[in-house]
């Protein structure tokens, strides 16, 4: 009898043991991710305003339909598309160029590799304040240099014009984020077998052909992963915009996450803000799906 019980218990224990090891991590996951996400869903279905906590009626998909008829949402959504494409695209291009340079042999390469990481290491608020002062109408170094070079006759209010503000903020974030690509791609470049490049050179491939036919295909996996990760981060980032412009002038630099943030923390409309955040999440899920599939393939 005892033997039979033991023979049953041991497999059950073995079966449960992995879950017991996972339990602490799962509990934390439930507490800090699943619960807030479920609460966001709940809020998005209610007219939840922070200063009316006892009067939050269920309105179904009302917050979502409101978003689709809200012109500010569409402005923010369009700005988000420009923001993501330009920031990620330019960061990648600059990061790739930097990585190719840093992969060359020169005597101060070690120092250059260390220096290039500085923008990435700076806190976003510092980056935003620094660029705000560089763009300053009266004191900014950008206006000063451009006028000394004779490129402009009068200073430009970079952060106060509809035609320059979004581009100015994008440039600041490109500067901050390109080291991520540079470091990732540089790490990838060092895995490209030298023999392959030598063989291509012997076969008569020029530098551009070696880059496009050998180097880039060899690090395609690294590039794809970096692009996916950066797209998710850039899509959600609002700190630099918030500090530099607060979304202004007007709605010129509103993006969806910033709009959700302002609706929550200025308007106190947590229900509507939750719906905006979920719409953004749904769009990002496509990117996340691609990332997860890629990550699973690498396992």
């Amino acid at each position: 009898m005892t033997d039979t019980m033991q023979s049953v218990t041991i497999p059950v224990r073995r079966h449960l043991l992995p879950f017991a090891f996972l339990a602490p991590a799962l509990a934390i996951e439930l507490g800090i991710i699943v619960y807030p996400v479920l609460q966001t869903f709940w809020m998005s279905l209610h007219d939840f305003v922070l200063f009316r906590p006892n009067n939050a009626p269920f309105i179904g998909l009302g917050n979502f339909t409101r978003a689709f008829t809200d012109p500010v949402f569409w402005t923010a959504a369009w700005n988000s598309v420009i923001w993501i494409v330009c920031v990620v695209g330019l960061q990648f291009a600059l990061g790739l160029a930097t990585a190719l340079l840093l992969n060359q042999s020169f005597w101060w390469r070690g120092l250059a590799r260390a220096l290039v990481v500085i923008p990435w290491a700076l806190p976003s608020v510092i980056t935003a304040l620094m660029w705000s002062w560089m763009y300053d109408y009266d004191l900014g170094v950008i206006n000063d240099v451009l006028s000394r070079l004779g490129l402009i006759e009068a200073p430009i209010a970079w952060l106060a014009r509809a035609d320059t503000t979004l581009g100015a903020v994008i440039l600041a974030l490109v500067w901050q984020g390109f080291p991520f690509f540079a470091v990732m791609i540089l790490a990838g470049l060092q895995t490209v077998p030298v023999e392959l490049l030598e063989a291509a050179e012997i076969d008569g491939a020029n530098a551009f052909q070696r880059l496009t036919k050998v180097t880039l295909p060899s690090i395609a996996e690294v590039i794809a992963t970096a692009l996916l990760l950066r797209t998710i981060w850039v899509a959600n980032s609002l700190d630099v915009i918030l500090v530099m412009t607060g979304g202004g002038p007007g709605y010129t630099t509103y993006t969806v996450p910033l709009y959700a943030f302002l609706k929550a923390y200025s308007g106190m409309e947590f229900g509507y803000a939750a719906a905006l955040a979920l719409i953004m999440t749904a769009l990002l899920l496509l990117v996340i799906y691609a990332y997860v599939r890629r990550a699973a393939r690498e396992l």
Partner: protein
Amino acid sequence: MERRTFLKLTGATALASTLARPALAAQTTVRWWYHFDNPQNTPAELVAKFEAANPDIKIAAESIPWGGGNDYYTRLFAAIVAGQAPDCAQVKLSNQARLMEMQALEPLDQMVAAWEGRKDISDNIWTLNKAGDGHQYYLPLHYVVLYLYYRGDLFDAAGLKAPATFDEFLKAAKALTKDGVSGFGMRGGAGGYDNWGPFVLGGGANFQKGGMISEAALKANRFYVGLATEHKVVPPSAPTDGFKQITANFKAGRTAMLIHHVGSSNDLVTALGDKLQAAPVPRGPDGKGWTLYGDESNAIFASSKAKEAAFRWISFLSTAENNVALTKLSGQLPVTTAGAAQDTSHQARFVKASTDSLPIAGVMPDSPKTADFVATVWPTNMQQALLGQISPDDMMQAIEKHFNG
């Protein structure tokens, strides 16, 4: 003193103090939230003075980041919803309606009526701080009134005097806009509604239904937006200029007029000395005028278990010399009449400009929508109007819609 007498006296004192404050026999802790423009300033000395005089009360003073108001109030509302509100906190009128809607405020009528110090605060200030339902939830703490700073030397050189009307203001701004100087440092960014108010609310607009789209209101707003778009008497960066930019421009001599309050006077005097002059904001065509009464009060929360102790603390802060000590930390003006007489932290001409402005000083509407108007509705619409993306009339329609549907 004989040992027996000493013991009798000690016993009697202990008994008397217990009887005198039966509700506070044990030490009570009062949690108080505050914010100062300079977060380095601490009320520790005031707390020590109060605790020495009130050994049965301990003050837990917590500095809460202001963050343009959003940070402070988001934390306050979240704390109230979570049942973790402090006993009392600094509050502004622009959020009184929201706090009332949350039923978070304790009426102070009876405690104020029984408080001797109430007589030292002027009736004007009590009236401005009274809630829409007739109750007194706020105990005034300090205040500012917005007025016009101007460069006396530039005005003298141009043969101008401080503008008393909108027309004189425009004339002066035009005359002084030259050689890299703009006549007026318009604040189109965060907080700029308090620059807009004197011209638009002072020009005939109001927050009642239809009050933003009356002919007088639309005309006043066209005038104000026109300072930038038509007359170009403001810096090109005005659409997003906030406090730091407008004061930096003024101190550096890039603008000739600026609207702000006494809180910036010491800093501006350091840069400009006697060139700095002040006067009430100009008045509209009907002569009425309007400027912002920038209030700060203390309120006690309904959830507090130490309301009496909290009132003793907040009334201590609104009593003459304590009120003066507090305003040295906040950079604002004492609400007490006796305190105002003792205040030496600001130069007289700026205190005079403040008190001269009191007859036209008003507050933002007592509405839950006011805070969002200040933080997003006004700046987004004003900036669009300044950029020509919408007309000044569209801007007023948007404000009307925000408040009155």
